[in-house]
């Protein structure tokens, strides 16, 4: 298992390098000019110098290794320096945003908490709703509850977040005036009232994202439970006179969770993609919004870094899912 994990980690290095190369070359083809926003009165030779100052003077085969160096070596050094007060980085060039002229990772670190709060919370809520629905749907297959669960998950698959989010705003903010439609990220929780406010402003974005998660995970949970409920060991457990709760929640559920856990791990990257749209609707200033703004402003280093971070997340989650599968299910042998 350990050897398998190490081998997978080693394979993921060329994968990530390839992905970084694809993203870099795609951005390299960009006809959009980061200098397009500059005043026309700037003389061409000054503009050329500014272009060089942005690091755009070199050809791609020089800049791509430079970017890799900055991403994998310089930025971690700065991070270690800021954590432990050391001086590994020694003033090396960081990845600088074209728009804000500040290090890309500083901006990302500012935006990360908002996204993590909303996305992470919605994922946890979604999974917590999905698991009981899946279990009951499978245990009472073709019952009214099961039909309703199927219908709700169909809706979760079909209603895009930009409609469900807008619909929630229309109902709960515009018509009923219960919840705020804009997520206030400057809000700090200090006492009970501010905590309630935070809770109220989080309900809608979290529920919009959770609907998608619930739809997917509850289907997998149901299918996995159905596979296990007809197995011989369940009949044996019942024949031994175990209570129905023990049989379902201990024997069946544990075995059914194995594929579901991997599905949950694999779903994490896609929920970040969904967050791009949700953040746009509820005006959360998280990573997704940062990406959209960077895209519109031709901020190539920012786009590159955020997209690559998402790719790292996908590759890592794939790896974690595979390793978890092997750990949870002793029948799976990778070697």
């Amino acid at each position, binding site marked *: 298992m350990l050897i398998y994990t190490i081998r997978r980690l080693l394979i993921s290095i060329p*994968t990530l390098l*390839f*992905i970084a190369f*694809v*993203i870099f070359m*795609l*951005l390299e*083809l*960009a*006809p*959009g000019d980061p200098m397009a926003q500059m005043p026309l009165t700037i003389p061409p030779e000054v503009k050329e110098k500014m272009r060089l100052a942005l690091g755009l003077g070199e050809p791609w085969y020089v800049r791509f290794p430079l970017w890799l160096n900055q991403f994998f070596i310089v930025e971690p050094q700065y991070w270690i320096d800021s954590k432990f007060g050391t001086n590994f980085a020694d003033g090396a060039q960081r990845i600088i945003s074209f728009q804000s002229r500040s290090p890309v990772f500083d901006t990302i670190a500012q935006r990360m908490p908002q996204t993590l709060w909303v996305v992470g919370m919605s994922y946890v809520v979604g999974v917590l709703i999905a698991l009981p629905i899946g279990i009951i749907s499978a245990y009472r297959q073709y019952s009214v509850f099961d039909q309703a669960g199927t219908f709700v998950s*169909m*809706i979760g*698959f*079909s*209603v*895009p977040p*930009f*409609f469900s989010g*807008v*619909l929630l*705003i*229309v109902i709960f903010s*515009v*018509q009923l005036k219960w919840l705020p439609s804009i997520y206030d990220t400057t809000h700090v929780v200090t006492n009970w009232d501010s905590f309630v406010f935070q809770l109220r402003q989080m309900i809608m974005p979290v529920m919009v994202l959770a609907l998608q998660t619930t739809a997917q995970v509850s289907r997998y949970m149901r299918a996995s439970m159905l596979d296990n409920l007809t197995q011989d060991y369940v009949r044996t457990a019942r024949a031994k006179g175990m209570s129905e709760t023990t049989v379902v929640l201990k024997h069946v559920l544990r075995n059914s969770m194995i594929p579901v856990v991997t599905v949950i791990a694999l779903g994490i*990257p896609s929920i970040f*993609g969904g967050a*791009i*749209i949700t953040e*746009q*609707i509820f005006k959360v200033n998280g990573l997704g919004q940062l*990406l*959209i703004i960077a*895209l*519109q402003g031709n901020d190539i280093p920012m*786009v590159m870094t*955020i*997209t690559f971070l*998402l*790719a790292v*997340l*996908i*590759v890592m989650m*794939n790896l974690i899912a595979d390793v978890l599968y092997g750990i949870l299910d002793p029948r799976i042998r990778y070697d």
Partner: protein
Amino acid sequence: MTDTTMTAVEKPRNQWLDVWAQFRTHKGAVAGLLFLVFITLFVTVGPVIWDVDPGKLNIRNKDVRPIYMAIFDSNAKVSWGSPMGTDNLGRDIMANIMAGGRVSLAVGWTAMVLAVFIGTLIGVLAGYFKRLDGLLMRFTDLVLALPLLPLLLVMMLLFRDPLRAAFGPENGIFILIVTGIGITSWMQTARIVRGDVMALKEREFVLAARSIGTPARRMITRHLLPNVMSPIMVSATLGLATAIITESALSFLGLGFPSDFPTWGKILFDSVDRMTSFPERVIWPGLAISLTVLAVNYIGDGLRDALDPRIRGQ
């Protein structure tokens, strides 16, 4: 006596008739199919009957509420001339929904066909030719590891202007969106088709066909492709659903078609600013997208059951 039994013998059954009989027992799928037919007629035949130019400005008639508002509020500005209301520039919303739906459905179908074509091609090649298998599947895994939505956004932004210049504003974006969605959503089809082709390759009828010297090309088109039709059709319905949603999402993020060119996502995006006063303007396109995708998903569900010979006939 033999004559009477002869007449009682059933007609020889066609496989697709069986599939259709099974499909009809799935109520949701039939309802989905009916709705898909309805919405397709609505956006294609609709403009012939509802002969209003979707782009025509009529400032005097702006902000007309939909006709049902007259029930709740007798003072509401309603008019039978525009039953779904008009927007802030007086454009008729029903005509816009029809025009937008035509674009959204066209993008959905074309992107789906492209994705299914690429997926089937790669799946069959990888499944049939052992030499290509490792390479093609490694490539599929790599594409699956790409963050697709951000990359799609990047592609939209980068290639918008060159394609617009080459093919005109509408056609350029159409080609861009269709290609973008097509080349980012073929991977599931490829994996499924590869698995099925590999299983089929070991079957006796393939061996028999090979023993009489069938060339690879004919082997694929005559023996393998007809047998992987059912998974391809199911993944095609899923592909249609995701293509419609992706196109709307791109339009919603402001990276889709140009602003005066309606699609469902675009109408929704344009209406968000005024949804406090005019919630119906986000509801109409949103409902159109959601119901169409829901219908397609139910059709896919029904097809999966109907095409599975183990379920069929029970």
